[in-house]
């Protein structure tokens, strides 16, 4: 009997209700939204198609899982059903180069890597920071670089200089995110300096993180910089950025180990960079700052 991942029972309904109560989109469906991303106008590239494993070629469709509460990287459109964003666009273009179609599935963030490890999905495209710890479980194709930054209430918020300043403060993060790991490391540093560790509130989805900051439960929100900036923009002046951002880390799409998809995906990405589609996609969402090139475009390029 093959191993199967059991999704935490409540987590799914929670993601929906939390999003509904938060200031984000009203996302009222449960586990999987099979929202097919807009058909890409990209044509298949024969050199790339050659690298695709035969069983995937036969299927013709790859299942891409993501946590669509992370605007503008991946999020739900106004209709509450279609998943849009930079990553759906990028992964659809990459799949088109591989001669494949894409089926998008929405899952809470911290269930995605276990799901990939259990071979439940083909690709995970949910703004993953490529870390050595995660590389033990899945393989990454680096597609982007993401910094992390803080935000707080515009009036009555907490001023900090950077992550070193978070000792003893209440910080909200999304569960399983690299920001949560970053705060854990900072907690050790705070304790070594004799100061109290930051108090971490971890939520299932990004909307609850913002709600925690708005309601005063948390003094600071900590997320990928593109997300923080988008959240601040959408808050109509209620939130503001604070502190120096953390240096960018490689961000990648995850595939199960041994699936054979990493090489064709890397080739597809390089093809998209060659014909400028990559920059066009990033430009559509205002994310040109996170573009990578040259040696950074690789498989499993974790630096920490």
């Amino acid at each position, binding site marked *: *009997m*093959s*191993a*199967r*991942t*059991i999704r*935490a029972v*409540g*987590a799914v*309904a*929670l993601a929906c*209700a*939390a999003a*509904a*109560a938060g200031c984000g989109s009203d996302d009222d469906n449960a586990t999987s939204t099979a929202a097919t991303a807009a058909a890409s106008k990209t044509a298949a590239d024969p050199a790339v198609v050659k690298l695709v494993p035969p069983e995937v070629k036969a299927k013709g469709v790859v299942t891409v899982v993501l946590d669509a509460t992370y605007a503008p990287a991946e999020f739900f459109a106004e209709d509450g059903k279609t998943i849009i964003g930079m990553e759906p666009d990028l992964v659809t273009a990459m799949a088109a180069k591989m001669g494949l179609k894409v089926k998008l599935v929405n899952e809470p963030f*911290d*269930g995605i*890597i*276990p799901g990939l*490890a259990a071979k439940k999905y083909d690709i995970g495209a949910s703004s993953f920071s490529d870390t050595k710890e995660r590389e033990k*479980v899945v393989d990454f194709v680096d597609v982007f670089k993401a910094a992390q930054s803080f935000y707080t209430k515009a009036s009555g918020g907490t001023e900090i200089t950077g992550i070193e300043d978070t000792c003893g403060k209440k910080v*909200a993060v999304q*569960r*399983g995110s690299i920001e*949560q790991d970053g705060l854990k490391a900072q907690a050790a540093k705070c304790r070594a300096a004799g100061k109290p560790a930051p*108090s971490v*509130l*971890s*939520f*299932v989805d990004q909307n*609850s993180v913002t*709600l*925690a900051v*708005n*309601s*005063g*439960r948390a003094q600071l929100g900590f997320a990928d910089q593109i997300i923080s900036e988008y959240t601040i923009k959408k808050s109509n002046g209620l939130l503001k950025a604070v502190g120096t951002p953390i240096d960018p880390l490689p961000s990648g799409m995850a595939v199960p180990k041994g699936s054979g998809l990493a090489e064709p995906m890397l080739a597809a990405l390089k093809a998209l960079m060659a014909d400028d589609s990559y920059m066009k996609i990033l430009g559509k969402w205002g994310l040109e700052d996170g573009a990578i090139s040259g040696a950074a475009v690789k498989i499993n390029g974790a630096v920490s």
Partner: protein
Amino acid sequence: MSNASSELAAPPVTAPDDIKAVPVRHPGRWVAVVVVAIVAASVLRAVIVNSGFQWHYVGKYLFDPKVLGGVVTTIELTVVSMVVGITLGILFAVMRLSPNPVVAGFSWLYTWFFRGTPLLVQLLFWQFGGALFHTISLGVPFGGPALIDPSYNSLIVPFVAATLGFGLNEGAYMAEIVRAGILSVDEGQTEAAQSVGLSRLQTLRLIVLPQAMRVIIPPTGNETISMLKNTSLVLILGSVVDLLFAAQQIYAANYRTIPLLIVASIWYLALTSVLYVGQHFIERRFGRGFSRGAA
């Protein structure tokens, strides 16, 4: 008249023939036993032999300090929420049966609202209410001077938000259960009490409620067992770490999802079993004097 020669041996007194009773055969039962045994054995084997369960991790984390801390928090949440819920339930049930229409109407409104909105949404509103109500003040109503004026978040800390959410929701369900129990007591009891001169409240306290308890206990036990599991919803609040949240925090770091969910399930089963024992003794206590009393 006795007749010496009639000392004929009377026929020997024998017991009536022992009936040769043959027990009724139930071949169907034996077939059923064999089928059930095979199914059970197959399921057990599939579970024990399956490497996906990673039973050695289950053993490793079963008594992990974070998990134990979560168990304690779960117990605390359950106890406090049920105390709040049962108290409010009795209060609102009595209010509902009041002859005062405003009081009865208010009670109806309470049960309608708190049973009519999802528990999840109620918890989120309590936790993030600071976005709506920055301070909670106690003083002269409608804008008068305040005696104390704490901020929402300092007064309603996450644990309080959780227990308020659970407790108020539970109170609405308990109100209906207690009302059912009170209605189950024969009207004659109330009439007799009133004829003896007891007030409404005395009748309730001394005569009706003690008898109503017998009907109230089993569904209340049900609700308590439900509450034990419902406390796992605190994970959306983000800061109260109960048993399930603790298990999820561990597997978010080491990706051992299945073993940790099993650890949590084992603990929930153990705690529920303790509640079963407790309920048995409470039912026995309140079932005294009834022939169809305790289980």
